[in-house]
């Protein structure tokens, strides 16, 4: 007899005598006791990992002992941070820094989980794009007073300080800026020379070169643009750069504040810029994130690429030092250069830290001339420490020097993107990246795209104003 799939009551399904009522009671009691023990263990919080969540107030501490530092771009910058930490520990033997490298794309979610669940570090790298969200949850310590009494006072780049103040959602300083990136137009000097083209320092030259260097039959293109993940900020950069509009918001006579993104001059500029797609760029650009875009340009078949200083090392490896240059974004015909604000990296001191004194000592060290210079040299970024900007390596790295000059000499007008809006990341990524792809594919007009974007931004701004009273 085969009875497959049959179920049996436990009291008669097995061999041997059935359990006695006493036995059943005994096992039930044991089960209840075990359950109670587990619940009690959890409910009474028998342990703690020793680190705080977003609401903890923390403590100033002794200024000695161990602090934890989260690097928000772990892996890529691990080596230089470890070098700086080693020097710091040599200078401050009574403080030990525990380094934790976090993948750049996951830094925001790691912070958010720790704010809710506990386990925040003492010091952490926080970029402007995620600053508003973290500051709004009350996780960061305001640093204005500490900076005023610090040797760093007066030695940090003013525009970077403004950027992080703005991104923090108000007048308080929640991170100390360490570096800034800048939009850079990378171009192939050898291709330009062969075609007799001048460097793309203006938008007119840029468009002429994009057209001239394109040869679809030979799979050569003048430009590659970013149509996939992260496409909104570069599109806005090109748009404001051509329209010459210098403010993201405008206030009407009635006192209402609305965005300028759908200004007719911006609509015309975006139409022209996105019109390059398929004509002077590869069709695959519609799905380009920065990795694909950079890899595509480094393959050697494309004339120009708009990215930032961060991809310099990749270009150097692929093309060698003499076949490319990096310039700040093109200027208008009258020499005016307008660009949107680029992400500023900074170090934040977390409110839950039990050793804020030691944590601040580490931040001061990391922002000192030598350490800030070392870090930015490795990253190819613009130092926040004004003394470090004068170091020889900045002058020797042409793209970095030009970007530092553009940001520092007052010749460039910066349109501050509203990183402080809690909805900025949603609006500028999930909500509108697919819409930009529709524009590229001809399924939506640039005007409709910008009108939708403007509507969402105005609502987000109104909500934010309402929350702030």
């Amino acid at each position, binding site marked *: 007899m085969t009875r497959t799939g049959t179920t049996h009551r436990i009291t008669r399904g097995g061999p041997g005598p059935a359990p006695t009522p006493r036995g059943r009671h005994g096992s039930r009691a044991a089960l209840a006791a075990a359950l109670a023990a587990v619940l009690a263990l959890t409910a009474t919080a028998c342990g703690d990992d020793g680190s705080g969540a977003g609401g903890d107030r923390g403590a100033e501490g002794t200024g000695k002992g161990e602090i934890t530092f989260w690097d928000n771009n772990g892996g890529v910058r691990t080596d230089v941070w470890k070098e700086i930490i080693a020097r710091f520990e040599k200078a401050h033997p009574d403080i030990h820094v525990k380094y934790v490298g*976090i993948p750049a794309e996951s830094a925001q979610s*790691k912070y958010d989980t720790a704010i809710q669940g506990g386990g925040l570090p003492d010091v952490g790298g926080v970029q402007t794009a995620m600053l508003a969200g973290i500051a709004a949850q009350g996780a960061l310590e305001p640093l204005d007073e500490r900076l005023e009494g610090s040797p760093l006072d007066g030695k940090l780049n003013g525009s970077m300080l403004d950027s992080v103040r703005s991104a923090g959602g108000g007048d308080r300083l929640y991170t100390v800026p360490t570096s800034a990136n800048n939009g850079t137009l990378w171009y192939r000097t050898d291709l330009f020379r062969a075609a007799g083209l001048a460097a793309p320092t203006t938008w007119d030259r840029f468009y002429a070169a994009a057209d001239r260097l394109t040869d679809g039959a030979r799979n050569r293109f003048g430009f590659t643009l970013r149509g996939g993940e992260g496409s909104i900020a570069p599109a806005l950069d090109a748009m404001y750069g051509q329209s010459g509009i210098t403010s993201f918001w405008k206030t009407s006579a009635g006192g209402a504040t609305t965005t300028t993104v759908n200004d007719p001059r911006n609509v015309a500029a975006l139409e022209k810029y996105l019109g390059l797609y398929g004509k002077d760029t590869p069709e695959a650009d519609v799905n380009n994130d920065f990795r694909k875009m950079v890899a595509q340009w480094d393959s050697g078949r494309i004339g120009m690429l708009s990215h930032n200083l961060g991809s310099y090392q990749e270009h150097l490896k692929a093309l060698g030092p003499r076949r490319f240059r990096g310039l700040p974004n093109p200027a208008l015909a009258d020499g005016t250069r307008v660009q949107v604000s680029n992400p500023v990296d900074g170090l934040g001191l977390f409110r839950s830290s039990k050793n804020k004194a030691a944590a601040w000592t580490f931040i001061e060290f990391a922002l000192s001339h030598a350490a800030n210079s070392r870090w930015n040299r490795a990253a190819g970024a613009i130092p926040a420490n004004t003394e470090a900007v004068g170091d020889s390596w900045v002058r020797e790295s042409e793209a970095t020097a030009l970007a530092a000059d553009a940001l520092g000499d007052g010749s460039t007008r910066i349109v501050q993107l509203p990183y402080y809006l809690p909805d900025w990341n949603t609006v500028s990524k999930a909500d509108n990246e697919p819409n930009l792809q529709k524009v590229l594919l001809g399924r939506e007009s640039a005007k409709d795209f910008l009108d939708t974007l403007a509507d969402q931004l105005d609502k987000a701004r109104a909500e934010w104003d309402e929350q702030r009273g």
Partner: protein
Amino acid sequence: MSRPSRPARPAGPTGTGPAGPVVSGRPAHPAGALRPRRSAGDLPRWGLYLPLALYLLFTLVPFYWMLLFALRPAGSTSLVPWPLTSEHFAKVWTERSFGTYFGNSVAVGACSLLMTTLVALAGGYALARFDFRAKRGFTLALLCSQFIPGALMLVPLFQIFAHLRMINSLGSVVVAETVFQLPLSMMLLSGFVKNVPYALEEAAWVDGCGRLRAFCAVVLPLLRPGLVAVGSFAFVHSWNHFLFALMFLSDQDKQTIPVGLNTLMGADSVDLGALAAGGVIAAVPVVVVFAFIQKWLVTGFSAGAVKG
């Protein structure tokens, strides 16, 4: 296990019936003989091989791309990995600590495999053999738990592990992985146990075995395909899973391969050679595991799916 072949149909009156053309005055397949291959009237061979070739191409090109970038020098644009270089492997293994990550991933994968298989085996047996109060509700709850994304449980899990002082320990990842894989594994093994005739266990009891001994001697050997399927599934899932390791582990020397791979992608730059080499290191154990167990895996999943 071989599949029984179909008996051939008799040749038609012209000698070119469904059984195939006549060769040398004899039918290709005499009436009544077993014929292992389909007749010429069925799908032509290219109709089978062309889609398979296209599928293979679609599947293997990304692997080729990964090997190409991992094995050719940085900056090369060659479409063949020549000259070969091991610089990317050396870089990720030593400078980027992939040796450590690899060891941690093996530990997490092996422990998750062991715990998932053991607990799912016990639970699956109970579901298959015992009738208990609220069994249907329990089964439904098991199924429903599959709809909860891991990300939703991050904060509660984080707090529980923090209370238990398990944050920054590989044990937290092992427990979380095991818990999330148990429902499916238990349901699968329950189906396998149901397929084992109950009379076999009863016969063992009659011969003097207790339940545990009867289970080990009679049922367990018959569950091998199911155990391989569940175990491999648990291992591969743990091996590839990124979220729990990222959130519960902080020390650099406790991270796993998926987190290590993510650190190779910076905010503004990516070392494609190192990333590809890291990808190869991550893929090799999974490929090796599947190469060894594919026979049991296919048997296991099909048996559990059909009769479960």
